[in-house]
């Protein structure tokens, strides 16, 4: 097992100064940093192996195709899909949800039908459904959350009815860190035959995900939040559903026969991957998955749960600071407010000390409204962070308090 203290060295970006101070990167929920092996793999692909995939008989193309297919297999294993064909490569979680909303939702939904989401969704899991709702006459129904930032399970059950045609909710909250009881909720939904999409954008970097055990129909995430390259993401879909869905984008590679009299489409996953995909992105994502597998979830969870505990205590010791999101089960994401100090001012002050956090609505405006705040400051940690960094964060926040006389 690797020592936590040396893990940082795997991430070249962490070794730099910002505003004269060592960089303390606490914006991992926005995007994670990439280990050197991932960056090097993208580089070596582009400088030694680059070719377009599919249809190519020549050596480079064959090898690129093989590497792309292997990336698909690695992803399938990573989330325990039943088959490689259940893995569709997209740009990111956002595109994956849009794909399902269009290719699955649109044909299913009728006027008056309901799409169940929660009050804590990321905009990526609200807006695509609103767009489909507008076209079909369906409605987006939010499940209430508690003041701790947990899904209100009573409200959840009460919102399920005969018009509920799809449920789509966040596995782990980007703004609060809450780990939702997805498996239990899915059981309830599946008992009523309601298809479920889980937005795993914030889940995959913190815990093992097993889509078959969860029982969801669709699962989505982004590579860039999983230590992999940007411009790459994954849609998992159960084959039974995927194989009945109509294409999303049209173009090369997703067709069987094209003629002006009519066109036939290939089976999934190809049906949903029109045009040249992000090949180096897929190959880089595989490298990131290999890195995580080498490290092991036990190690990651151990480091992260102790960081979460330490950081929660540290922040709680600052009088004017209020942690937003105090669910029982959390990943190391800490949102907070500090009296009259506005999150953007806090973030600017922290940045001047080399500390990168995010301030704002975290693409969750309805959640902010529900919690009665216009914005929060968010520190989101990963396994490469450490307690010294959290101490620095604490000190900087004390100074914020001083400046704003909280």
């Amino acid at each position, binding site marked *: 097992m690797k020592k936590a203290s040396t893990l940082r060295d795997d991430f070249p970006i962490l070794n730099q100064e910002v505003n004269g101070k060592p960089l303390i990167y606490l914006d991992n929920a926005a995007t994670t940093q990439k280990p050197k092996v991932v960056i090097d793999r993208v580089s070596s692909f582009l400088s030694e192996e680059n070719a377009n995939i599919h249809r190519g008989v020549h050596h480079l193309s064959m090898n690129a195709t093989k590497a792309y297919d292997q990336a698909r297999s690695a992803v399938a294993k990573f989330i325990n899909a039943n088959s490689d064909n259940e893995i569709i490569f997209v740009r990111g979680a956002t595109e994956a949800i849009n794909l399902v909303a269009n290719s699955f939702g649109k044909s299913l939904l009728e006027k008056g039908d309901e799409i169940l989401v929660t009050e804590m969704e990321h905009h990526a899991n609200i807006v695509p459904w609103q767009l489909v709702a507008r076209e079909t006459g369906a409605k987006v129904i939010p499940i209430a959350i508690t003041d701790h930032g947990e899904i209100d399970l009573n409200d959840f059950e009460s919102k399920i009815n005969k018009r509920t045609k799809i449920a789509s909710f966040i596995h782990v909250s980007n703004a609060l860190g809450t780990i939702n009881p997805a498996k239990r909720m899915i059981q309830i939904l599946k008992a009523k035959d309601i298809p479920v999409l889980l937005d795993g954008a914030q889940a995959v970097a913190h815990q093992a995900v097993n889509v078959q055990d969860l029982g969801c129909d669709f699962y989505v995430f982004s590579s860039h939040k999983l230590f992999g390259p940007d411009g790459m993401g994954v849609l998992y879909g159960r084959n039974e559903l995927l194989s009945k869905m109509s294409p999303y984008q049209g173009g090369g590679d997703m067709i069987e026969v094209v003629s002006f009299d009519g066109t036939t489409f290939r089976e999934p996953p190809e049906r949903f991957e029109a045009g040249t995909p992000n090949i180096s992105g897929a190959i880089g994502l595989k490298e990131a998955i290999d890195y995580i597998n080498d490290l092991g979830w036990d190690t990651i969870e151990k480091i992260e749960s102790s960081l979460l505990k330490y950081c929660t205590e540290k922040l709680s010791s600052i009088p004017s600071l209020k942690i937003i999101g105090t669910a029982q089960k959390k990943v190391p994401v800490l949102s907070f407010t500090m009296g*009259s100090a*506005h999150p*953007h001012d806090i973030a600017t002050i922290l940045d001047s000390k080399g500390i990168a956090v995010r301030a704002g609505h975290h693409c969750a405006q309805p959640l902010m409204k529900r919690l009665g705040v*216009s914005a929060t400051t968010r520190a989101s940690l990963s396994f490469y962070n450490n307690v010294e960094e959290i101490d620095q964060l604490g000190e900087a926040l004390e100074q914020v308090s001083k400046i*704003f006389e909280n």
Partner: protein
Amino acid sequence: MDDLSDLYQEIILSHNKRPRNSDPLDPSTGQAEGFNPLCGDKLTVYVRNSENFLETVSCDTDGCAISRASGSIMTTMVANKEIIEVEKLIEDTKLLLTGEDEPEVDLIEHGDMAALIGVRKFPARIKCATLAWHALESALKGNNEATTE
């Protein structure tokens, strides 16, 4: 630390804590909203003016210290002035905050806005400082929305 104390000066913090002229005007002749979708800062500028003269202004801000202070300072600077003077002040302020060259600060001309010059070192925050001024411009032109992007 120097840049930081430049930015969060006493005068800014005081305007942030107790913004001047923050209540909606009644009666008013115009108003405009300012919105920065990148950070969520939101404000409304109210004006009471004739064709040539700006009688009074208020600015109600939901946002960071920089945007609140900037709006508050603005209201103290532009009231009771010829429109033509106000327009010049708007231009001067934009130049002060965003001009390519390091500005020469004229305490008479720039007034309390001079305190905001520290924002130049914080490019991410410049739009916070200009938001109220853009909204004022819109309110005077009879548009009712302004965003800084």
